[in-house]
């Protein structure tokens, strides 16, 4: 069967417009990387399966098993791998020249998260459905979002034109959480609407970036050029500092009302980074950092929960079984892991049938991976986040205009900064704030929001020049075949 008939078939099915002709485009790099990801996940599943077999044999006091090539929860892992390839297939059929690294990177992170959820006690989240099954469901929905964004989203008018609408939606979401939200571990994080409940701050971070991209790209010339002279000191234009003050206030409000230190830190850090990206004015960063220090100091002295977090951070070993328990146990987990880790499923000793860290699946998966995959493993995980950010910044620098550039930079920085905040909290580099490790932590809101980010980045990465490619231009696959024929 020739490629032509396939293409023709696609044309018949796909929606045709005079400008876009959908031609499948071979995504070789993505395919290769996905195959590697699939192999890695199957290997992880086999490793976990073998650990479980030996454990069971030890408990039953029987001889160690000889046939150890057994996958742990093969169904879940295979469904996930199939979903990854399905997204790949959709992107191939869409025929766009979009990024090929993002999907496999996200896929590996999500897969590691899935294996980790398979490894944990299934009732850890306290729900009826098992931890791993629920996580797989959200992963598949997240991958669907990536596919839809990667295939469908071809222009950004809906994002850039309605930035104030998005901002209003974000503020509304925030207010709704203030008013209707309910508390998780003393933080007002969760909002329930009808049968759906989720953490609005995850969606909020995407909306924030969209708004900032719109605002900053529009006001960039003014922010860059104008300045206020205060005697010999040149300051940025004071009127345009207003959004900074508003952001600072919103971050403070999130901390005070929602008690969500992690989200506040993330929002403020991404805001400052984007402000710098769009203006390249270091003075903004300095002013922002001063404001941050003042705000943090204020919060420390006024609010107990902030002070407790900081005190635990300063010396968690002062109360290793009480306030500092989780942080201390996380450090112990890293220590037990050592250089190469205990292996999936072989670490995290149960106490009374529970893992030593209660929030292992949400706030401490990094510590759990540190124990079971070792220093080598978490360096690889950190590397994956750097790859994501690097791809995002690359897309930003190649973007067609300021809005898309700032948007892409903001989206990728959200993931990078969020991963840093929680990993650094786990490692006691900064005070611990409850925030998810993107793609790895358990939880639907986080997975959906981060999938949305990757989907948007893939959509933004389309390497086309106006006007879009001529309809007859052969796909890469076709050219390959042609060359082969010649």
């Amino acid at each position, binding site marked *: 069967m020739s490629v032509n008939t396939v293409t023709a078939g696609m044309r018949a099915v796909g929606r045709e417009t005079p400008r876009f002709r959908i031609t499948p485009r071979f995504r070789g790099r993505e395919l290769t990387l996905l195959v590697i990801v699939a192999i890695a996940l199957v290997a992880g599943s086999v490793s976990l399966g073998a650990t479980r077999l030996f454990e069971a044999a030890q408990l039953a006091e029987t001889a160690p098993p000889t046939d150890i090539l057994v996958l742990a929860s093969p169904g879940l892992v295979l469904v996930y791998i199939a979903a990854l390839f399905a997204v790949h297939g959709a992107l191939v059929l869409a025929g766009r020249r979009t990024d090929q690294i993002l999907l496999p990177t996200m896929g590996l992170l999500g897969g590691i998260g899935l294996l980790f959820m398979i490894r944990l006690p299934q009732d850890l989240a306290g729900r009826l459905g098992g931890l791993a099954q629920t996580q797989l469901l959200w992963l598949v929905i997240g991958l669907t979002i990536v596919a839809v964004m990667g295939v469908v989203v071809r222009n950004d008018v809906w994002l850039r034109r309605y930035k104030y609408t998005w901002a209003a939606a974000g503020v509304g979401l925030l207010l709704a959480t203030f008013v209707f939200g309910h508390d998780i571990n003393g933080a007002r994080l969760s909002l329930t609407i009808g049968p759906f409940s989720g953490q609005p701050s995850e969606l909020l971070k995407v909306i924030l970036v969209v708004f900032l991209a719109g605002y900053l790209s529009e006001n960039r*010339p003014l922010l860059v050029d104008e300045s206020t002279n205060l005697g010999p000191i040149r300051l940025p234009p004071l009127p345009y500092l207003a959004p900074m003050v508003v952001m600072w206030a919103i971050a403070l409000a999130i901390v005070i009302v929602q008690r969500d230190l992690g989200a506040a830190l993330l929002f403020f850090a991404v805001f400052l*980074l984007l402000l*710098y990206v769009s203006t*390249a004015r270091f003075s903004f960063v300095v002013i922002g950092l001063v404001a941050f220090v003042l705000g943090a100091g204020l919060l420390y002295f006024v609010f107990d929960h902030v002070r407790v977090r900081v005190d635990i951070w300063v010396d968690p070993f002062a109360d290793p*079984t009480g306030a500092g328990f989780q942080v201390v146990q996380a450090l*112990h987990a890293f*220590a037990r892991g050592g250089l190469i880790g205990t292996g999936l499923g072989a670490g995290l000793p149960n106490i009374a049938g529970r893992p030593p860290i209660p929030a292992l699946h949400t706030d401490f998966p990094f510590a759990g991976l540190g124990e079971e995959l070792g220093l080598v493993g978490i*360096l690889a995980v950190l590397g994956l986040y750097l790859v994501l950010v690097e791809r995002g910044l690359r897309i930003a620098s190649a973007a067609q205009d*300021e809005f898309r550039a700032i948007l892409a930079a903001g989206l990728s920085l959200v993931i990078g900064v969020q991963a840093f905040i929680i990993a650094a909290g786990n490692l006691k*580099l900064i005070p611990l704030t409850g925030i998810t490790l993107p793609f790895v932590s358990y939880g639907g809101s986080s997975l959906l929001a981060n999938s949305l980010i990757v989907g948007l980045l893939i959509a933004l990465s389309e390497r086309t020049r106006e006007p879009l490619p001529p309809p007859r231009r052969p796909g890469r696959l076709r050219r390959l075949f042609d060359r082969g024929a010649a």
Partner: protein
Amino acid sequence: MAGHERAGGSRPPSRFSPGARPAAHARPVSGMSPSWAGRRIGIGAALGRVSLVLALAFGSLALGAGYWQVIESANLSNSGDDAAVIAAARNVLRGEIVDRDGVRLAWNKRDKNDEPYRVYASDSLAGVIGYSTRQFGASGLENAWNAQLSGVVSADPLRELTRKFRADPSDPESVRTTLVLQLQEAAAVALGRNRGSVVMLDPRTGEILAMVSTPTYDVNAVANPDTSAATFKKLQKDKRSPLLPRATQGLYVPGSAFKIVTSMAALGSGAITPSTTYADQPAAERKGWLIDGFRVRDGHHPQTGSKALDYREAVEASCNIYFAETGVRTGSEALTQYADRLGFDAALPFDLPTAVSQITNGGGQLPGGFKDRVELANAAYGQAEVLVTPLQMALVAATIANDGTLMRPHLVLETTGKGGTTNVGRSAIGQVVSPGIAQEIAAAMRLAVNGDIGRIFTSGAALRSMVVAGKSGTAELDPGTSPHSWFIGFAPYDNPQVAIAVLVERSGGGDVKASPIAGELLRAWRTWAAH
């Protein structure tokens, strides 16, 4: 910059990529204001710096991870707070505890997580064996001998545990106690619903045969992880203080039972002889004995009439006037000295922590800390500020029974682990009084139980099957409240093999409660000893 463009390959030139910037700088694009186009710094450069910052941040994560996973790895994973060490310790099967005849007192079961928890043979053991729980730690013997029972004794085994926490590298030892389960249960039954305590020991060796504190509590419910928290909460709220091990931690006014201590000081120091009498004593029975403006009153024994009592008769009739006068004659210095030899004023050398028995609050003018001679006179017959533990009073009786030599009380006969069996030997604390004086006091105590007058006070303790010697006590407390009931004694008189102290809180005179309980338990001891 041109190089960057080439490296970009087929990528269309971006207006904001670094590559595009110099062009914009060199000649402003029409439509842009020259002022900002000229000063413009492209997004590309800022992106580069931001990515550098992020790379540094992730580098610091790598360093942090390296610090905890390589440099601090050994330190942390070998510490007692490590989850693996805790899990291993929880998975250790504690050694069993058996009574002196090998009857199991404490052993292990496994919960739904396959983790072991403790099971106990009887609630009567609550006050001595205590409990071992995950949540609330351990008490009693379980706590005192935790190192041997859990087999985790030093830093080195912890390291072992860390390395292979699923295996069983520890060496828990089983403990054979000196206790007799059937005596424990008999004592708990005899005390019944009363609050009180019984201590029985072998005076020749110091081996504790029974040590009971009531009310007892459901020690299995405390140890079972499913019921532990609720039970513990309830017990802590209970106004009858069931968690207080009264035998070792309860402090009580001893009343007349303390006269045996005064006897040892008086006879031992030579202040009196067995034939000492006080001429003013019979008259004082009616109107009280006046000392420094205070009247010591008596009135318990009209049977003795106007006869001036000698030592034995005074013990038999439990004459307060005689002992008040004897106390003053003996002096606070000798009384303190002899009490200290018996173990007062310090924690007892015992397996379990003990409260400190005292003869005075201290701080007074007289040697030993008595306020004045009035306090000394009242203390001599067991009132004033004298406070004792039931264990201390059992040791007083045991010292008389053992010819004046006090043996160190102990709860453990031997421990058995992988390395074999270790015996816990007996040892003497010291000679309190000479054998002659001990025998004189023993003879008086025999009369106190079996004499014509003594029987009025201590009748319940006398047995047909063997001769019991002892002394009852009625500890007067606040006026209008019921006194503590005491009995201390030993048996058989000719060849003492068991000493006993019985305390029943706020239950009336020594004859009412404590003496019959002592008689019942000595009979139970005889039944056990006959086997």
